[in-house]
């Protein structure tokens, strides 16, 4: 644990959307090579997997060996001694599914918080705005056992103030007195709203529509995440989601983000131009499922994610179970450097999962 990971430190300290492709290739490439060596030295099962792959040291971002994300369900993978484990994250596995187990030490947990702060404040600014949490207060009530949803909400509360829950505990109905009081108190000011995609659609936007209520929070930001699986079943597109969010609540900026419990802190946030952005300390590679070669712009394949954050477990390069497509690099009209991409959905055979899918709707 004592060797210096200089490139990792350097890339984590760089503003998240400042590196162009050449700079990022050098710096992130070096950081990922350091991490590959670090995990091989500190995690015997990881060293075994590398030896079996017989790849030699990686010399570029796309050459870093990747582990299938479901390996974290099947194996206990960590690069720290048991007594250095500070927190264990588990994925939102529902009944019958084995959750991933991700072991964090303090250094990794802190790197996660800092990375998330750097990305989030790039989108909503450093000032903490009045925050509307599109969920019910019960989701964070049991402090000893948060769901993935509760943990996500708590993480985002850092970026807001005067936190107000929009939904009732009992039935997930709109808490209109709370929403009205919040709206009156912060009238005319841009607010920050956060929730999980399915909850925001089903219990907030759809409920406002049904009740014929329009809220007015001009210039506000809504950040949401958790996956589209359930909304695809209801045939709700991202465009439709955004249009309703703006019309019903005045959310002028709606940012979905893509991320996973196996790489907390590396979030890929959607900009105002509808593209998901890779920050400098992380990247996305789209691979051909037939030969695993990296694909170029516009070619659909399987999403691989790499991140300089994971130090306590060998999760710096993971093959996801999602399909995606690259939409550009260093050329987004929003001005942020790095690759942009779209997520197209799950690989058909993959088990169903998604943070916001953990709340199963009762029959309407």
């Amino acid at each position, binding site marked *: 644990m004592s060797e210096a990971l200089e490139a990792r430190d350097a890339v984590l300290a760089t503003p998240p959307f400042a590196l162009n492709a050449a700079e990022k290739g050098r710096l992130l490439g070096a950081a990922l090579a350091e991490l590959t060596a670090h995990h091989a030295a500190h995690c015997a099962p990881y060293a075994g997997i590398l030896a079996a792959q017989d790849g030699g040291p990686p010399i570029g971002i796309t050459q870093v060996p990747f582990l299938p994300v479901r390996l974290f369900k099947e194996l206990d993978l960590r690069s720290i001694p048991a007594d250095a484990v*500070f*927190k264990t994250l588990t994925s939102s596995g529902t009944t019958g599914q084995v959750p991933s187990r991700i072991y964090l030490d303090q250094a990794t947990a802190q790197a996660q918080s800092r990375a998330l*702060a750097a990305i*989030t404040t790039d989108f909503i600014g450093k*000032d*903490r705005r009045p925050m509307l949490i599109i969920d019910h207060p019960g989701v964070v009530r049991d402090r000893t056992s948060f769901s993935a949803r509760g943990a996500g909400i708590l993480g985002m509360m850092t970026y807001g103030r005067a*936190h107000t829950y929009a939904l009732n505990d009992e039935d997930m109905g709109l808490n209109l007195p709370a929403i009205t009081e919040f709206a009156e108190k912060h009238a005319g000011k841009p607010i920050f709203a956060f929730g999980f995609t399915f909850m925001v659609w089903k219990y907030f936007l759809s409920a406002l529509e049904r009740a014929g209520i329009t809220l007015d929070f001009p210039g506000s930001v809504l950040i949401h995440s958790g996956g589209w699986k359930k909304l695809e079943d209801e045939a709700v597109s991202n465009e439709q989601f955004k249009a309703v969010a703006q019309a019903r609540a005045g959310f002028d900026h709606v940012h979905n983000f893509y991320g996973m419990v196996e790489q907390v802190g590396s979030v890929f946030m959607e900009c105002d131009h509808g593209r998901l952005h890779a920050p400098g300390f992380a990247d996305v590679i789209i691979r051909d499922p037939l030969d695993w070669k990296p694909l170029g712009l516009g070619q659909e394949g399987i999403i691989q994610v790499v991140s300089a954050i994971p130090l306590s477990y060998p999760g710096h390069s993971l093959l996801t179970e999602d399909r995606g497509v690259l939409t550009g690099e260093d050329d987004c009209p929003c001005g942020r450097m790095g690759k942009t991409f779209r997520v197209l959905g799950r690989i058909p055979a993959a088990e169903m999962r998604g943070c916001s899918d953990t709340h199963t709707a009762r029959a309407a």
Partner: protein
Amino acid sequence: MKSLAEVFAESLMIDAASVVDSLAYQSIKEWDSVAHMVLVTALEDNFDIMLDADDIVAMSSVAKVREILAKYDVAA
């Protein structure tokens, strides 16, 4: 105005005597992420300041909180 130790003790529901400079975030079960947000609100109310997101992430110990408050001309 309450002292920094009093704000910590009330927010985390711990004994004021255990509020020492070296006390670190997440090192005791009482200072978890929920209590951290309670602490933020209490600090803002008590010292009449507005902390930004970077401050909250950087509040890793009592000493560090004192250092951040100094930025806002609060001698705590």
